[in-house]
């Protein structure tokens, strides 16, 4: 599995993403960082085929990702909101996305149970989303994304709505799940601490129109605290640059 992003750009009236290229190898955990409004989420949506790029292209193992066109490869997405169907139990929510894969009812059920278990929801399979906490709903959304055994897992600030404590717990959980399942993950966040604590590769985008400002291998060589400081300085520079540029348009 190899994700290749080549010269991708996006305009919404004004250019939001200028030109971004990077690759992600199988099993990597890549975090996309950058100041607010720099197009992190847009970039993730382009990679996921949810939005067309204005320029450039994305391929997954050589297969081009085109918005609105079905893909041979499987991509799981965890959104900022859980996007669970409130009228289905957690188990049925996960089992639903296994339907297009052609699994039988019993198998769907077993797979759903397994991944809910991996996400730490054993015993809550028959709960409706409204009956569990926000953190648990986001765990169920992660279980759903994992259940299709995706070639690529995209996560768009999945813990943005959680309180600090739950956030830290979920970061550890995602890190554990990544190690257990060996999935390739592209993770958008605006929290530098979050990125440094979970990502193996950190991509810092510049202010709008964004390019890659810095690509850092987070292999544990550099001291985490120092890395956080360094990235904080960078993001402050970018924020100032964006504000110095005045309002868009």
């Amino acid at each position, binding site marked *: 599995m190899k994700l290749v992003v080549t010269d991708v750009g996006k305009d919404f009236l004004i250019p939001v993403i200028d030109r971004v290229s990077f690759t992600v190898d199988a099993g990597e955990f890549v975090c996309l960082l950058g100041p607010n409004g720099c197009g992190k989420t847009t970039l993730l949506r382009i990679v*996921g085929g*949810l939005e067309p790029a204005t320029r450039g292209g994305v391929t997954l193992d050589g297969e081009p990702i085109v918005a609105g066109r*079905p893909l041979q490869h499987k*991509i*799981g*997405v965890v*959104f900022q*909101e859980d*996007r669970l*169907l*409130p*009228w*289905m139990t957690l188990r049925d929510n996960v089992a*639903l*996305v296994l*339907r*297009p894969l052609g699994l039988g009812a019993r198998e769907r059920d077993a797979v759903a149970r397994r991944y809910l278990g991996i996400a730490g929801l054993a015993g809550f399979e028959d709960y*409706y*989303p*409204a009956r569990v906490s926000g953190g648990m709903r986001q765990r169920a959304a992660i279980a*759903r994304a994992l259940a*299709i055994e995706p070639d690529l897992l995209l996560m768009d600030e999945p813990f943005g709505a959680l309180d600090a404590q739950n956030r830290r717990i979920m970061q550890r959980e995602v890190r554990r799940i990544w190690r257990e399942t060996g999935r390739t993950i592209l993770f958008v966040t605006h929290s530098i601490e979050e990125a440094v604590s979970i990502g193996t590769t950190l991509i810092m985008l510049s202010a709008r129109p964004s390019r890659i400002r810095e690509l850092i291998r987070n292999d544990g060589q550099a001291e985490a605290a120092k890395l956080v400081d360094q990235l904080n300085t960078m993001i402050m520079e970018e924020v100032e640059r964006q504000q110095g540029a005045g309002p868009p348009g």
Partner: protein
Amino acid sequence: MRRGWAARLHLPTLGVAVLLLALWTALSWRYGAYVLPSPLAVVAGFLEILRSGEIWRHTAASLYRIAIGFGAAVGAGILVALAAFLSRAAREVVHDLLTVLNATSVFVWIVISIIWFGLSNWAPIFTTFMITLPVVASNLVEGVENVDRRLLEMGGVYRLSGRQKFAAIVVPSTLPYLIAGMKVGFGLALKVSVVAEIFGVTSGIGYIMNYSREILATQMVFVWALVMILVMMATDRLVFDALSRRLARWR
């Protein structure tokens, strides 16, 4: 949910009811039974139609016409909402047509249906259909418009087919709007169809009320009004409230 009758009949309401009954009795003494029959006469009349079975004959006739007219309106409403869901152009046309239908008076449909169908069962049925269709359909169209696009996008990410998205996302999120529309629509159907029954048919609550007036049996007008109220309350409680409770079990 399970509260006793004692708790449901709150005391202030009971007090007001007693006061109104007293006033009613007094007024009926003052103006006579033709203008205002006494409460006792109404109760006696109610027991009489219960004993003779007349209550079932006319209620069934009215409900039969409502079932056809209102049932057809629900069916047509579902088709209209489906069209609105599938095409933006259809949605705009439906919006405009429903606005016109909503603005049309019951009386227009009664007169037209008498011209078209003569003095037959079809007059009240058609009137009921035309009046309840916009209520049911506009509720459903609103429901369809409120389907969470983010959930549909999620369905797309996981490659659910159009049919799977429809069954798993669109139908469940629209169902509460359908039930709400049917609840309002049924109430309206009952009120409208009895008006249409004044003309040309020889059974039904509307017919028998008008007949009672003609033979100067004013107490029977009150009795049949009571029957209408009871039918309305019973369907509300037993059908629609039960349905919406069942739908909301995941909340």
